[in-house]
């Protein structure tokens, strides 16, 4: 059976507590800044796909996304 170390959970707890405590209500008309292109979570998607493909062919901790594909990278 896999051994999950304790500190694996720590960042998750921090993240969750940030989510639950750190937010103030933001009305829909106050979200203009959040909608700016530079604030988008996914920018230059093709370039990001390319980078993760390169990292994935050279590092062990890649993949694990939810889309699949990418080939063998056996070089």
């Amino acid at each position: 059976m896999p051994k999950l170390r304790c500190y694996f959970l720590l960042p998750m707890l921090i993240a969750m507590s940030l989510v639950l405590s750190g937010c103030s209500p933001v009305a829909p008309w106050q979200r203009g800044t959040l909608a700016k292109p530079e604030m988008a979570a996914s920018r230059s998607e093709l370039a990001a796909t390319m980078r993760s493909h390169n990292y994935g062919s050279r590092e062990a901790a890649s993949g694990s996304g939810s889309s699949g594909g990418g080939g063998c990278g056996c070089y």
Partner: protein
Amino acid sequence: MAATKISPLHALTVAALALPGLWTADCQAEEDEINFQYSRYQESRRNLIKTPNHSTPIEVDSLFGSAKVTLADRVKFAFNYSQDTWSGATPITVAPLVVEANQAVIKNVKGGKTVVVGASPIIASRQITLNKNLKPLAFNKNGKFLGKDLRVVNVLSTASPETRKQGDFKLGYEWDEAALYAGGGISVENDYESRFGNINGRWDLNQKLTTLNLGLSYTNSDTSAIIDHDASTYLTKTAFLNQIENQGAYQVLTGNRQDWGSNFGISQVLNKEAFLEANVAYTRSTGYMENPYKATTVVFVDPEQPGINRLIGDVKALLEQRPDERDQWALTGSYHQYIGLFDAALHFNYRYFQDTWGISAHTFEAEWVQPIATTWTLTPRIRYYSQDAADFYTPYLTSKQAFVSIAKDSSGREILVDAKNPNNGIQYFRDDNYNLIDSNGNLVNESTVSTIPKTVAFDPKKLPANFSSDQRLSAFGAISGGVNLKKQITKGVSVEAGFEYYTHAGALKLGGGGEGSYADFGYYVANAALNVNLASLNAGTKPGDHAGHSAHHHYHQGGAAPAGVMFAHMMNKADDVMVGYRFMHSHTGGKMLNGDAIASDASILANGCVTRKAGCKMVPTYMDMSMHMLDIMYAPTDWLNLMLMPQFMDMQMNLRQLDGTPAPKLGEHIHAGTGHATGGIGDTGMYAMIKLFDLSSLHHLHLTLGLSAPTGDVDITLRRTHKADEGFIHYGMQLGSGTWDFKPSLTYSGQLGDWSWGAQISGTKRLEDKNASGYLLGDIFESTAWGSYRLNHWLSASVRGLYSDQSAISGEFNPTPGLVNGRLRKNVNPNTSSVDYASNYGGRYWDMGFGLNAQINNGDLAGNSFGVEWLQPIATDVNGYQLDRGGAISATWAVAF
């Protein structure tokens, strides 16, 4: 009439409201857009410590294209296509330095000197000396003992170009506060095929301040790898015998793996200027997860050797062995903060990864997105990655047993067997007087049987269950940094260029203890992209523009020309921009021709390879070529259009042996079976189109003057195989002409009612005597004429005739020196196949084309046009000996602004 002025912030707010789940990556509500990207990955040379390394490291050319469109009000569709072509030298195993596993490949140069031009792996059986603690010992050339040497080194192997292609899609339905997407795709390469499907859901809560994402994916991948022919003899494949099939001269290793992935994410708006994302992912992988091209070096040492302090070890390479199961967890947190002072955004990302192979990894990434002067965006980024080694990672192994030893029976006697039939089950022994006896102790007449000692192979159970020397599984750290620059060119069109440098080093591992510096390397990636936002094309229509999309109608003045005709249209309004994409695929296959008649194998054998006394051995069975072209067109005035046309090509082909070819000599290389592939950037065209006359929209004539720049490679070589270096892959598989070419054309078109017609003559004139590889492609002349009829308000059909003539190649490839079976040859360029000869190129061709063109006049995709044309060969008259043609298909898309 002036439109009501709307503040940019208000516009963005409206956009934010219209786009639910704006910040979620997997399941995002997207605007309709089309993207293209080219990237080049170039790795640094590996340090081979004692052997100079001049071999080309891994390089990868990649092309990406994607389209996102709204099919119906709430139905979204996305399609992605990508292809990579790679080649170069990469580690196959790691060995103690004293094994001297990298052999220098040398070349004679003027003045009688020799220089090292490459390295070739010898993972052949070698013996090394070890001390009693099993540490390798070093000696100089004269056998003088130098001391212990614990250094290890990568052993490199070079790969010929190979191509991977992937197509995938996503179909989604969006509700006001939720969305569901399902997708799938396939990735295909010669030795690996992967099919995958996924489903993702998004749910907005709390007035869209909180968004939940859930995803599930399944991937099924088959490996079917030809074991490196050079290495195969020396590889020990004991663990995979039931996965290896003999297919002709090749050994093929097959395996299957399956991956189930799931992820759950939450994104939360923190305040007006920040939001946070957290994601947890779990993936379970089972099956064959080895890299079929990686081996682990094992030093077999029999501890019971005579002698006191020194032992002899047999160095062998075993195919790597990985566990058949792997569970992986990843936890990701991202923080996105707007920086008001600079009108910029800071994105920070951390990821923790852990799996059941013993690997844990941390990734930190930061990106600063800085808009500059409304149309520019500069994005510097930095990333740090660190991982522990897998439990079973080892540079190499030492096993305390002989690789092969003499079998003994229970009483310690050496077993002998019949040399002619060692597996007949009969055992012999020597008695105390050295007489040959059988297992019952009866004397055997030695003139009736000749015996040899029975040998037993090593016991695999004494090796670890799993081992790998793949540096992806070692302990290391990596730092990378780069910058991306984006420029909005016009409404809806932007271009982007990026660069990243990556450095991998054992010393960069978090907390130290990483792999030795022998494994360090780096790479850089450069990319360029073009983005066409179809939504802004429509949204940007000026108020008061009565026809809505009238802006592009002028583009199709003169009727649609068939998809296979280039430079057929001009834009006749100053400052107009057009972006287009052209795809062309041609198939060559079928019978071999000599002139316009079918050629027999016997006649090709005798005459197909003009300068080779022994005649031809091989002919191609097929050759496929695909071209992807981008058209970027701009009209500085109403009578002049400027056009830039970058191209990306890929090609595949295979060969067969001619009937009647003499049997190959032992060790001679027969090429048939595996096929070859090349791919990458082709030549880049630059054109000026000049309107000559435009007669009351009925007759139109324009001249195109073009220059083609030699950006495509003409120096692609085949990898070293079968202990023999090989030179250039044949002319037809090179990606460009290698010369500056002049490309003029004259186009006439006319239109009356539903009918339109046209004619074009065009040519390609090489402007140099020969290219850098020593040859010159023939000049080309083409003429074509077509007629087209409009079937309804958006669709038209076309028929055309085409004649083209291309001269044969002049000159030939420069000689390539290389090593064949350890001997230096002046020229190792392939010469056994008809395609290796310049005289077997060019010819005269007659074709008919049948096409359809669609012009979309309303709806979200208004302004886009599509065309497709099938080109059917009618007659072919080739120079020399060539394969017959099978037809070609062209497809185009264009949008004008």
